[in-house]
């Protein structure tokens, strides 16, 4: 094999990930990929393991259950979201527009949804739907505090993203194209024949459907190669297609004028439409006739691009990247793409694609193709899965000082929901998220969750002490070693190789050492790894040992360990 100059100069690439990451059992891996991790006692691996006799049957049952979210009772999330602090979640698009755009002008719908997504991610049992809603929000990314988006955000989240997340891609695409949030964000709301705006048309092709890999730049339409699987269509698009699509979509605007009723709904406005014939992805030949009926030009475009093989591949690749690995194996992408294309007319097309991807986890050879730890959890996933792992009791909601304290900290980690301004969505590769800013502020947010109210007598958010007292088998044996072992197992939901203990691992050594550390302020005997802590001292928040503080710090370390923050 020839060795490239680059390799000689710079050496082999580093190993991805972290070395201290034991591979957990199948159930734990599955629940970290298609859910925000296990939630002990509620959404737990015992339940997954009860679903069948082998991995494939358990996985199939779990995936199919999660793919039918409305059949899953979701009382806890519903109860938390019925908190009176959430005031806009049940409003229709018309009500939202009237209340938050026409009669006043405010961000309340964004405040509600951005906090509701935390509540749902932590407490909803429809975990896969939450994972996918996050995916589609980023695929069709909008900066939520943009003008028409902020008043209608509840509708965008509910009527567009969640409504179609397991539905048909073509239908979803049309819903995005016609929502006031998208029409405004990418400027199509103002695009008219006499002064077209190409912003939406370009991102529609590059980010929403065909993908940048199918962009052939500024060459002539007739010079685009035919698609290898279907020579009747071009392999991708060129700049001229952007302009032609832009023309097709002129007059797609928002009913935002009192002369039309000012409803905030989508409106096709014939005087603004460019009625000439157009050539969209057709090697330059006109395939959109002049003077078509209302909306028809644009709908033809959506039909064309939603069914294009490049779209199938691009969307499938991104879904695989979200669910499985930064660089997903081509065999799984191929299978997902085939499912996408075989179901272009199906009302459950996206459900079928997701099913194909997730069931691959039980394939023989999957673990070699997608090693455990292929993904780094992003700040949102780290915080949510930490709240699940420690059974947090915290309804993050608007106009609440404790929620705001959380929010300011999490903001610094760089992944506030719906706060990414460019249209490409938050990045989904580990390189971007392993910078010190993201890591430190994510961990600091979790540290705050662990500490909040621990010394005030108010209800704590993360019941570390209570869990220890209720679940630790033998209070006379509160040694640092055994507490570290207990919490590693409690958080990570497994022991290495099913041995029943973490004792003897580097991970255990690091966190037990933290718990048993000497403290310079103490003239008392040093703590010892194997010497029990008096049960009454475990709640101590004071000198010399601060046992409660040590315990919370140790749980924080476990929640920032390689075993927890990768998936």
């Amino acid at each position: 094999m020839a060795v490239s100059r680059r390799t000689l100069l710079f050496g082999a690439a580093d190993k991805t990930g972290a070395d201290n990451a034991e591979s957990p059992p199948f159930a734990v891996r599955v629940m970290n990929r298609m859910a925000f991790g296990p939630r002990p006692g509620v959404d737990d691996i015992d339940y997954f393991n009860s679903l069948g006799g082998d991995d494939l049957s358990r996985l199939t049952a779990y995936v199919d259950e999660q793919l039918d979210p409305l059949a899953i009772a979701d009382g806890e999330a519903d109860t938390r979201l019925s908190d009176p602090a959430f005031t806009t979640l049940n409003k229709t698009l018309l009500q939202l527009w009237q209340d938050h755009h026409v009669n006043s002008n405010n961000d309340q719908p964004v405040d509600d949804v951005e906090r509701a997504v935390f509540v749902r991610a932590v407490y909803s049992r429809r975990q896969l739907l939450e994972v996918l809603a996050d995916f589609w929000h980023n695929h069709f990314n909008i900066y939520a505090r943009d003008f028409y988006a902020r008043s209608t955000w509840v509708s965008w989240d509910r009527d567009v993203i969640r409504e179609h997340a397991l539905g048909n891609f073509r239908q979803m695409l049309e819903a995005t194209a016609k929502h006031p949030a998208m029409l405004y964000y990418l400027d199509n709301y103002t695009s008219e024949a006499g002064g077209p705006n190409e912003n939406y048309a370009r991102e529609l092709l590059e980010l929403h459907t065909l993908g940048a890999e199918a962009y052939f730049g500024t060459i002539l339409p007739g010079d685009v190669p035919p698609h290898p699987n279907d020579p009747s269509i071009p392999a991708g698009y060129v700049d001229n297609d952007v302009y032609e699509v832009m023309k097709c979509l002129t007059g797609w605007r928002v009913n935002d004028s009192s002369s039309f009723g000012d409803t905030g709904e989508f409106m096709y406005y014939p005087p603004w439409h460019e009625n000439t014939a157009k050539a969209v992805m057709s090697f330059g030949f006109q395939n959109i006739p002049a003077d078509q009926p209302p909306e028809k030009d644009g709908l033809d475009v959506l039909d064309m691009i939603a069914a294009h093989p490049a779209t199938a591949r691009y969307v499938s690749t991104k879904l695989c990247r979200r669910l499985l690995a930064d660089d997903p194996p081509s065999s799984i992408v191929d299978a997902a793409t085939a499912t996408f294309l075989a179901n272009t007319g199906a009302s459950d097309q996206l459900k079928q694609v997701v099913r194909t991807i997730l069931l691959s986890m039980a394939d023989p050879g999957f673990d070699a193709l997608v090693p455990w730890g292929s993904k780094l959890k992003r700040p949102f996933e780290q915080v949510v899965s930490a709240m699940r792992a420690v059974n947090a009791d915290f309804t993050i909601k608007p106009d609440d000082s404790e929620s705001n304290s959380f929010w300011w900290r999490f903001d610094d980690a760089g992944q506030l929901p719906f706060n990414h301004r460019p249209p490409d969505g938050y990045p989904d590769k580990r390189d971007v998220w392993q910078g010190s800013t993201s890591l430190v502020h994510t961990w600091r947010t979790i540290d705050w969750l662990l500490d909040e109210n621990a010394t005030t007598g108010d209800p704590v958010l993360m019941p570390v002490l209570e869990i220890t007292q209720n679940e630790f088998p033998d209070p006379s044996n509160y040694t640092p070693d055994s507490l570290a072992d207990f919490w590693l197992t409690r958080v990570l939901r497994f022991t290495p190789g099913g041995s029943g203990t973490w004792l003897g691992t580097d991970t255990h050594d690091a966190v037990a050492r933290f718990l048993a550390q000497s403290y310079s302020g103490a003239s008392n005997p040093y703590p010892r790894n194997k010497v029990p802590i008096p049960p009454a001292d475990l709640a101590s928040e004071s000198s010399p040992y601060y046992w409660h503080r040590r315990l919370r710090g140790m749980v924080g370390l476990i929640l920032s360990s390689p075993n927890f923050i990768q998936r």
Partner: protein
Amino acid sequence: MKLSRRVFLSGLGAGIGAAKLNLTLADMAAYKGSSLEPPPILVNVFLRGGMDGLSFMPPREGDNYTHYETLRPDLRITPDDSLNVGGGFGLHPECDGLRRLWGTGNLGLVHAVGHPEGARSRSHFDSMQYIELGTPGDLNTDTGWLTRHLQTAPNLPGVSVLETLVSGGTPPTSLLGRLNNVATIGSTSSFHPNSGTFEDTHLLALEQLYSGAGTLDQAVGATVDAVQLISSLDLSNYTPGGGVVYPNGSFGDDLATVAQLIREDLGVAIATVDFGGWDDHTSLAGNFSNRVRTLSDGLEAFYKDLRATGYGEKVIVVVQTEFGRRARENADNGVDHGSGAPMAIIGGARVKRRRHGTFPGLSGSDLLDGQDVFPTTDYRRVLSDVVSDMLGNPNVDIVFPGFDYTPMGIFWPDQIFESGFD
């Protein structure tokens, strides 16, 4: 206090990777006093979204202005308003700060910089990647151009406390292949995963948990270093030099943090700063004015801060964007994605105060495809001048593989400066 520091080994043959040494505060002090004379620190400011060059540096006279008036009936900036930089061009009226830097000879401008033929894209994301990877038309390159510079520069100090500094949260593609060794420094207040009683031992435990050789191990190691570094500095009580005031907002904050860390003499070789929001498809006039004022005021404050504290010859600021915008305004008082856009270079006496490169003209036949400011200078040429002349790295062929580099002469030769006035 013993600081456990990740120390970066630089230079050809050192390879990727970090060696872990234990540096004490005394070592840091010794480093500050070392006789090494490293190359200037490159501060790479990237204006994300595609900055409109014809609003940043509009023509003021002649045919260029006549065409400009026609192309920009509503958005044009008149000669009465723009700030003259000679040659028939001016700066945007909100660029007083940059105009002052021009006046003191600390600013160079380059006309109509862009992508070479075959790699021109109207996609923000492709265009940024091409520039940051330094390989036009190829998105599969696995290292960024800054990474390759750091890997091949022969004159970087062998040891530095903080080689690369990324302000804000997200490391740029230009550092791809080195990201896990990069400290990203944003939101520096309360920059600790568990401050209080057990803050030092918490960091020690993190280092133990991430003691392997994987990329995440390295990233967490760099993170622990960054936490210790930030903790050891008094960032909240920063007094900029020269009495300057940084503009409000994240761009000003980021520049102030970079200046502060540069002044700590930690061996910073590269700093990157992002400034987003330049995608003016609609209502350009007011939005652009506010943004360019922040840009201009921020850059002036940054340079004057450093100059007043003795770093005026030790930094070189390079300002660029992924593409310019269409020559003709659209119907929404905005401009859509285009091609050529100016670059700005800020630094000390070696920066030639000139409008470098060629303005291509604005007649219908001058424009690229009849629409865009024609890119007359490949961005790699400007950056190669920076790499070879200012940073002293002759390996331009590795930093920009396959690029047929002809020097532009943006900088005065080092010798003249050294043997000249003193």
